[in-house]
Each structure stands twice: as C-alpha cells, then as structure tokens.
C-alpha cells in the first residue's frame, strides 16, 4: 500500500486573507516572532498497490482536489 500526502496552498498571487487573520491573532497572543502565515489544506490518500501512483495522484489534484485557478499542490508519495 502507498500513501499520498498532498498539501494544497493558495498560489502566491492570491491574497491569503485567512493567513493574515491568523497571523494577527498569533501576534495578539504574544507570538511576535511569526512573520507570515500560509493556510492550506491537507489530503491524505491511501492507495492500493499497483502502478507508480504519482501520475494518477497528479491527475486527481488537477481534476478535483485543487482548483488550478488559485491553488498549487505539493505531492509526497510514501509507504
């Protein structure tokens, strides 16, 4: 069995308003060392054994899991 761990984040050109709000909140709690916050989504896929899974996972990302208009994907395939 393989596991795909996918991190979905906003493209750098898109305003990360949620990240900014969380950053302000961390500062309000006294965590001044935080310079920037990026909020994203995490998806973990448990895949049955078979062919090299990366192409299929990339297709899953581009067709459903992420919206390529405003999101980027980072894919890690492991055990």
């Amino acid at each position, binding site marked *: 069995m393989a596991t795909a761990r996918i991190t979905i984040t906003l493209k750098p050109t898109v305003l990360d308003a*949620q990240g900014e709000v969380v950053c302000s909140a961390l500062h309000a709690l006294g965590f001044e060392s935080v310079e920037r916050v990026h909020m994203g989504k995490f998806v973990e896929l448990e895949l049955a054994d078979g062919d090299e899974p990366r192409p299929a996972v990339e297709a899953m990302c581009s067709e459903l899991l992420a919206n390529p208009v405003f999101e980027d994907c980072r894919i890690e395939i492991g055990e």
Partner: protein
Amino acid sequence: MNFGVIVFPGVNCDLDTLHVLREVLGQEARLVWHRETRLEEFDALILPGGFAHGDYLRAGAIARFSPVMEAVRRHAERGRPVLGICNGFQVLLEAGLLPGAMLRNAGQRFICRPVRLRVEATDPTFLAECRPGDLLTMPIAHGEGCYYCDERTLAEMEHGGQILLRYCDAAGRVTSAANPNGSLGNIAGIRSASGRVMGLMPHPERASEALLGSDDGLRLLRSLTQALTPA
C-alpha cells in the same frame, strides 16, 4: 418560457427562485433534481443558491460532477441561457462554464446584507432592461464571494464586455469601501464569452418583490423570460 431550477443536495434557494418565476413572473418552471440527465424541455436553466454538497472541498467542487451537469453544459452549448445565482455561480465556475474562481470573503466573515450593483455592460439576455451605469439593489448572503481570476483572464473579460455587475456605493462609485468581499475589481456578476451563461453572487430572487425591500432583481429575471432562445 419554461425554466428548470437545478437542485443539488444542500441547495436552499430553489423554492424562492421557483416562487418568483411562477408567482411573480407567471412562467412555467419546475425543480430539477441533480440526477436528471435530460433538460431539452427547458428554455432556460437557473442554478440557485445554497450549499450544494455542503460546499465540501470547495464551494461547487462536488456539484459539478452531478449527472445533471453534462446536460447543463449541452444546454449552454445549444445557445440556451443558464443563470447561476450565488452557489450556482460557484458551481458554474468550478465546471468551467464561467472563467475564474471564488475564494473566501477577504474579511473572513459570512456577509448577509443588501448591496448596490452597477451595471457595466449591455446584455440582451440577462440585462435587457438595464443600461450601463444603472444601479441595482440586491442582497448578498455568502462566505465565499471573493471573485478571482488571473490577469490574462481579467483582460479578456474586460475586452469582451463579460463583466456585467460590480459592487458600488450609493452614488455608483466602484470603490474598495463598497466591496463587501474583496472581489477582484469589485466584480459581482459576469457572463461567459458566448454570452449565454451568467453568474452573479447577489440574489435577484430575494429582490423581486418590493415588499421585501427591492424588486431590482426582477429586471434581471424578467429579461431572461424574454430572451430569444434557439430551438
């Protein structure tokens, strides 16, 4: 005109939309469950507001895979009008029937209040009763209404007159103060390059009876009832 109002699980503005079409505008209209696959009987389709599939993953992301969407696509390709309101707009964006995408409101809050819109273009299908510069009042009620597209798409839309409505203030000025959700260019409503598909975040079906505060929404919905449709 015969209207189909598409209902995905989680949609909640279907009955209001049906009410305006039937009781206020006297049109033939019925609800269409998302598993139906034949839409030839309809002259126009409306994708109403709500939370289709719970807005899971992204608003509209799951709805676009519903069996009915292939028929919606064919309907638009045949040149018949499709109107997406709020969540319906989000579904059309995710389905690629309209360009761009919807992000979470910049202020992170769900906003439910009337807004002023400025008509930006002439449109014979959806805004036949309006002229550029006209101001309309309609309510918004959304948490993910921040319209986004890349620079090239924006340039194409501006060039093609596809931007139909922008958020503005009472004097018709398109300012950031008048932008409730951070939408690029205060964009509230757009149409497709073909001109047959329109999406807007405000709710015209909630502004179709003066008793409820505004009937400006009727100018949009009534325009649709008179749109010429190909066979």
